[in-house]
């Protein structure tokens, strides 16, 4: 029998232990071994990235700590393109002894461990690719987080006698069990039952089997199809459960084509709904609708746009909140720890008044086509009104708005927040008439929003002062100020509201960027 150099584990240059052969591993070639568990969400996230490497010169071998059936299912569902072997009785695992999985070992041509990586780490994966002379394999903007901790390796689990997935949520599956049916006795009022068990403190429409089925039929997907897993408890949002919440909120069946991408957008790692749902801050997800779907489903974009004016806005926003509550478990008397909350947690959905806007629609600014319906999600504070009825010039209107913008998060806090400026049509027209494009209006707001340096005192230690060393000092209206926002892109302009009344609104954010919540825009399929 040929003795492969890979049969030994080395520490530095010293061979310390003979280890079981890794099936399929060829000597004389660099290799990546990756240990994984089939039900570990981090393994499920990480392993597909290596498929980009497998066609290259390096050998990639997956080593499953689980049984054959679940490993086959893992490989099939995640389209793993490299060989995967079962680590029976965890013999190879015990030799390498990773603390957690996924665990990646880069072996040189002689089978020596050159480097090791645990968990999901985009930078680490790209370093691994680089060491193999390969281009980066993990893009920073693919929706996955930069890093995610792994799970304890099976061989370190004291109760585990043999390899096999533990009980609990199976993160992999695309299809879940059907939702339970609850038959209420005649003496139980279904409205009161549903309000107390599944409501937003207000009565809801009971999600009877017939109503839910009508909602599901509007989708064309199996009722048990899993659309997303909703933080913070990662409940499986199946088509059927989304439909049940849509019924409760008063949606029409046509709303399902908006709700499915909305749930996916909310669970996009960039949006970080886990943090938005659990924070002590005011944030609530604001849904912004653009494109033909406004007309098709009756989304309102005019007077009272933030109010209780249209079934589409109110029921979509409410259904979304009920999904976060019932499936995601973000209960306002539990995991949702917001100190003061937000009235938007009943419903927070607006549409752009594209017809009265002098500029291209918001979703076009976000990179989609004009005829594409779209939704955008922003982790938002409540709207703060700005009245400006006397200024005749667009420049002055923008300046008035900049004073409100300076106060988001809190006055002295710069760089951290972002903001949505909801321009009323009258303000938008005045600003455009005076020659501002949308981009120029945003640039003006960026350059003219600041906080005077004289308001900062090291001894008072007011919030925002601790970051002052990072702030940029600029001169605004003759005064030395710290620039409020980190870039013009931190400000978004959205035109909405009625054509009478020179009002706009400024909406502050939660923590932003990769360390907080990033705005996401998703297309809504055509009907």
């Amino acid at each position: 029998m040929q003795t492969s150099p890979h049969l030994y584990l080395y520490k530095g240059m010293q061979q310390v232990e003979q280890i079981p052969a890794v099936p399929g591993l060829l000597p004389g070639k660099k290799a990546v071994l990756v240990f994984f568990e089939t039900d570990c969400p981090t393994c499920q996230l990480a392993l597909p990235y290596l498929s980009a490497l497998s066609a290259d010169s390096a050998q990639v071998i997956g080593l499953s700590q689980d049984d054959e059936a679940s490993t086959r299912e893992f490989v099939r569902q995640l389209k793993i393109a490299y060989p995967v072997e079962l680590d029976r009785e965890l013999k190879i695992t015990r030799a390498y002894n990773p603390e957690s999985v996924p665990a990646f070992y880069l072996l040189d041509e002689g089978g020596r461990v050159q480097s090791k990586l645990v968990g999901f780490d985009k930078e680490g994966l790209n370093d691994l690719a680089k060491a193999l002379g390969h281009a980066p394999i993990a893009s920073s903007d693919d929706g996955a987080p930069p890093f995610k901790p792994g799970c304890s390796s099976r061989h370190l689990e004291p109760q585990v006698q043999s390899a096999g997935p533990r009980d609990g949520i199976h993160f992999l599956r695309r299809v879940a069990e059907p939702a339970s049916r609850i038959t209420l006795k005649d003496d139980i009022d279904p409205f009161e039952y549903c309000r107390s068990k599944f409501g937003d403190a207000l009565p809801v429409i009971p999600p009877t089997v017939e109503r839910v089925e009508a909602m599901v039929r509007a989708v064309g997907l199996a009722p048990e199809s899993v659309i997303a897993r909703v933080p913070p408890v990662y409940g499986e949002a199946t088509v059927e459960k989304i439909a049940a919440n849509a019924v409760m909120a008063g949606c029409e069946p046509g709303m399902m084509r908006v709700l499915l991408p909305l749930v996916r957008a909310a669970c996009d790692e960039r949006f970080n709904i886990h943090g938005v749902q659990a924070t002590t801050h005011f944030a609530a997800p604001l849904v912004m609708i653009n494109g033909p779907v406004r007309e098709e489903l009756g989304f309102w974009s005019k007077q009272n746009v933030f109010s209780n004016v249209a079934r589409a806005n109110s029921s979509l926003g409410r259904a979304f909140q009920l999904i976060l509550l019932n499936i995601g478990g973000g209960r306002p008397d539990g995991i949702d720890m917001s100190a003061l909350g937000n009235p938007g947690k009943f419903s927070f959905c607006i549409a752009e008044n594209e017809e009265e806007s002098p500029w291209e629609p918001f979703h076009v600014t976000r990179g989609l086509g004009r005829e594409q319906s779209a939704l955008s999600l922003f982790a938002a504070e409540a709207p703060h009104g700005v009245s400006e009825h006397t200024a005749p010039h667009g420049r002055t209107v923008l300046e008035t708005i900049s004073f409100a913008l300076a106060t988001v998060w809190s006055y002295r806090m710069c760089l951290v927040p972002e903001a949505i400026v909801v321009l009323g049509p009258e303000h938008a027209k005045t600003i455009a008439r005076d020659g501002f494009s949308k981009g120029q209006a945003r640039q003006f707001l960026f350059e003219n929003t600041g906080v005077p340096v004289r308001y900062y005192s090291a001894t008072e230690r007011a919030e925002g002062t601790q970051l002052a060393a990072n702030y940029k000092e600029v001169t605004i209206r003759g005064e030395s100020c710290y620039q409020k926002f980190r870039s013009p892109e931190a400000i978004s302009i959205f035109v909405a509201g009625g054509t009478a009344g020179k009002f706009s609104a400024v909406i502050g954010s939660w923590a932003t960027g990769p360390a907080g919540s990033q705005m996401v825009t998703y297309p809504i399929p055509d009907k």
Partner: protein
Amino acid sequence: MAVTIVHPGNENAPKAAEPPPRLAGVAGKRIGLLDISKPGGSFFLDRLEEILRTKYGAAEVVRARKPTYTKNAPAQIIERLRAVDAVIEGLAD
């Protein structure tokens, strides 16, 4: 007539993990302090470290800091803290 509804909530409630055995004492132990990176956390944990060392005789205090309080700790930090006997996660504002 009896009404039948479709369960609209999460039916797979996650199981809470069993807490590990409690330490009998801190003396001679390696204690991890995880700063979630909220403002003020370091002041609180600096003092806690001092108390753990001087008053309770901790053998070592391992300090780690999350890059952001809004998300889970990255894998590297979890790995570092696996080597200690107990971890105190510090919230502060």
